[in-house]
């Protein structure tokens, strides 16, 4: 996958996070006891780690990981915030800033290693108080499981479904897959540098789809003297062998043709990931490498930033307001009386109409972005994460073209990363466990976006083990959050709520992926600041599903305008099921609730005049009533209105903070005559 399109987002987000990190560090230096600041720094470090990891900027990711360990110890009071320590954190910040600067310049994080800083950080951890013993185990658990991968080297490499699929595809295109084991001279000093040259050489002829140990480990010199790669190539084996043998300090090259033809293994998964994405090659290596000769796609090009302008959303708001005003004035002009409708006049108005419509569309388009722009980084992430965990995870995405306001899009990346990582790490069980449970070995994570009325819903679901609510119950008692008796009475829903509290994690082990208790509270806070909500459904053994409901701010919607008394109201057209006429005799009462029969089912009715306390008039004297039947989920409800005005495209406008608590109204819109009409909250009214 070409990551360059996400580079821009990464850079902008990194800049913001670094800015906030800087401020938080300054605050922490002033008030070393400020827990909130510490939490904030931790979150920022965690977020940067995730982002850098996703983009393949491993040095950044490593450094932030080390920072996190120290910050974690600080949060657990195993270390004290001293001026020296803050100094070190500042140095880390500088290093991160340098990496970002490098990325902006060249598209790569550069070759500067932060080993010294990392050493200092781990030195701090060694000196921590006794109570820290447990935490240091946790940090160990965070290290990549190197030994296990090394065991595989001698035997034939195990291929996962995805790789098999790739090999099959390559074969269809006339490419061979070779398993190449390179043994380095035992006297070799700079093993990783040598390996780098070998990778580069291989990439001249072929495309590397797998490496054991992983490239990250090879880079860190975490391998003995040999490593194995699988490449796809059209080149002659002997040419490759000769080239490799010509590299100094290469002792032996063992090549083996892979004849994989496992049709059953061909899955849907591969469709989502273009082939250049196979190997997590650090960006700098990848950029240096020449494009693979026969690779289906050239390796990432060197990317520089530019071409986009980041505009303050407020300015777009102003622009949109002006355009809305223009449309209102145009409507007024059309309706003006006492003007002779000459041919020229009509033409001018029509032309004006076209321009304002295009202008409006253009401005709206600037603000609306398909969720795809955020979702696109996830397949790669899931792949990397699942591999790291030794699990098989399939990511299914749908509704990627669902559009959201730009303000919202920019913010949902982080929460979604947290949820997806959680699902991989805690949700999906290990392969062995899944086999035992009779589940398919490959876990499934579903990422779904769709519009639901005034909201966009994003679902993150997995078919894993679900949230163990009993474990949560135990944990909150252990933490002293709730007394044992009180905890026993908490419902499943209450217990799940605790997961969204700061510093709460049920994971037994801390891993690189998640499990420190950052995450869910960050997710919740973020979504709520966007005016949205998060809900969880979970079933033990069956999996969990998170529902993120986000408002479609400032969206244009199709609405049905209705008249009640002297007042005009708008009902979102997407929730209108049907409009029918009824007579007062049709209304029956069942358990004090007024209902009507509609298509053989009983539906409750709501007299909007009464609920909305519209002054004057009454429904009683009407012989025929207009019933707008709305749909909420599968449920139908009838709203009695006086008159239908018609259908119209309207711009939703917030009622503002002062009236934010008005339950039956979601927002307002400005009509052609300049007056305001309120948009009814169908969900609230139907209850």
């Amino acid at each position, binding site marked *: 996958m070409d990551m360059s399109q996400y580079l821009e987002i990464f850079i902008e987000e990194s800049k913001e996070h670094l800015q906030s990190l800087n401020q938080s560090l300054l605050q922490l230096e002033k008030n070393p006891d400020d827990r909130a600041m510490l939490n904030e720094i931790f979150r920022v470090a965690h977020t940067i780690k995730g982002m850098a990891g996703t983009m393949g900027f491993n040095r950044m990711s490593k450094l932030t990981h080390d920072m996190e360990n120290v910050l974690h110890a600080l949060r657990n009071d195993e270390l004290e915030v001293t001026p020296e320590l803050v100094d070190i954190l500042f140095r880390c910040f500088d290093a991160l800033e340098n990496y970002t600067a490098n990325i902006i310049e060249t598209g790569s994080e550069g070759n500067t290693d932060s080993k010294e800083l990392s050493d200092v950080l781990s030195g701090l951890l060694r000196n921590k108080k006794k109570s820290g013993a447990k935490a240091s185990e946790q940090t160990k658990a965070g290290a990549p499981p190197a030994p296990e991968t090394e065991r595989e080297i001698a035997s034939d490499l195990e291929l996962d479904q995805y790789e098999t699929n790739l090999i099959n595809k390559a074969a269809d295109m006339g490419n061979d897959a070779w398993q190449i084991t390179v043994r380095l001279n035992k006297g070799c000093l700079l093993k990783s540098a040598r390996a780098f040259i070998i990778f580069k050489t291989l990439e001249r002829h072929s495309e590397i789809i797998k490496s054991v140990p992983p490239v990250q480990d090879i880079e860190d010199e975490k391998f003995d003297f040999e490593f194995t790669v699988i490449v796809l190539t059209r080149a002659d084996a002997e040419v490759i062998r000769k080239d490799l043998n010509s590299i100094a300090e290469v002792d032996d090259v063992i090549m083996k043709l892979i004849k994989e033809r496992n049709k059953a293994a061909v899955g849907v998964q591969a469709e989502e990931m273009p082939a250049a994405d196979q190997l997590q090659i650090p960006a700098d290596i990848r950029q240096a490498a020449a494009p693979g000769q026969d690779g289906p796609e050239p390796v990432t090009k060197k990317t520089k930033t530019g071409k986009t302008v980041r505009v303050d959303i407020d300015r777009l708001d102003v622009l949109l307001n002006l355009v809305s005003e223009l449309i209102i004035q145009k409507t007024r002009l059309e309706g003006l009386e006492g003007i002779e409708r000459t041919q020229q006049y009509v033409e001018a108005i029509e032309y004006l109409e076209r321009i304002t419509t295009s202008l409006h569309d253009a401005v709206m388009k600037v603000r609306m972005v398909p969720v795809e722009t955020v979702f696109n980084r996830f397949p790669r992430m899931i792949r990397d994460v699942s591999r790291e965990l030794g699990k098989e995870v399939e990511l299914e995405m749908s509704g990627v073209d669902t559009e959201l306001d730009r303000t919202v899009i920019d913010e949902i990346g982080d929460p979604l990363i947290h949820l997806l990582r959680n699902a991989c790490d805690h949700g999906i069980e290990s392969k062995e466990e899944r086999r035992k449970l009779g589940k398919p070995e490959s876990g499934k994570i579903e990422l779904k976006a769709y519009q639901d009325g005034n909201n966009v819903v994003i679902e993150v679901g997995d078919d894993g083990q679900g949230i163990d609510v009993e474990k949560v119950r135990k944990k909150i008692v252990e933490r002293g959050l709730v007394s044992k008796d009180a905890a026993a009475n908490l419902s499943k829903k209450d217990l799940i709520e605790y997961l969204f509290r700061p510093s709460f994690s049920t994971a037994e082990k801390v891993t690189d992926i998640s499990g420190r208790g950052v995450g869910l509270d960050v997710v919740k806070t973020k979504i709520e600041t966007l005016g949205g909500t998060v809900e969880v459904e979970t079933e033990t053994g069956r999996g969990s599903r998170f529902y993120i409901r986000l408002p479609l701010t400032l969206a244009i919607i199709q609405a049905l305008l209705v008249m009640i008394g002297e007042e005009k109201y708008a009902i979102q057209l997407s929730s209108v099921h049907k409009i029918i006429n009824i007579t007062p005799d049709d209304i029956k009462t069942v358990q004090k609730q007024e209902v009507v029969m509609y298509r053989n089912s009983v539906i409750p009715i709501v007299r909007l005049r009464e609920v909305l306390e519209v002054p004057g008039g009454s429904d009683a004297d009407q012989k025929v009533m207009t019933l707008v039947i709305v749909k909420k989920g599968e449920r139908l409800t009838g709203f009695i209105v006086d008159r239908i005005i018609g259908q119209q495209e309207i711009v939703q406008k917030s009622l503002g903070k002062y009236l934010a608590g008005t339950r039956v109204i979601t927002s307002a819109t400005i009509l052609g005559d300049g007056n*305001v009409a309120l948009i009814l909250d169908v969900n609230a009214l139907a209850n």
Partner: protein
Amino acid sequence: MADQNTTDARRYLVFRLENDEYGIEIDKISTIIEKDMDITRVPKQPAFVKGVINLRGEIIPVLSLRLKFGLDDDVYNEDTRIIIIKVDDLSIGLIVDSVAEVVLLDDETTESVSNIAGERPLEYLKGVGKPDGRIITLLDLEKIVMPEEAAT
């Protein structure tokens, strides 16, 4: 502003409700408009919330100070004005009988709340200005725009 040299001198806009004069700090006012548009009623709101208006594309809530202060409901005429104030990023319109003038008040001509008793709406009061023998009730806008439950 030339007056800023005087210590604590502030400009206040004076407006009338019934027979009394009230003042609000002029730097909290974004604009004053005539009441020549319809106000859209918002359901489920206390009576003093008259509704919302469209001010250059922005939806602004409009409050009746008369009802808020327990006076009779507004009767709109050509003197009626809506003063649009901005407090804490919140734009709100206040309906008043009429707008008089801008006065300059300093410590000499202002008395703080503690010295005042009487029939004026005490809870929204910040002080009283007494230029040239007049009595101008100075309003605490923060308290006025606070939701009802919190203010009382």
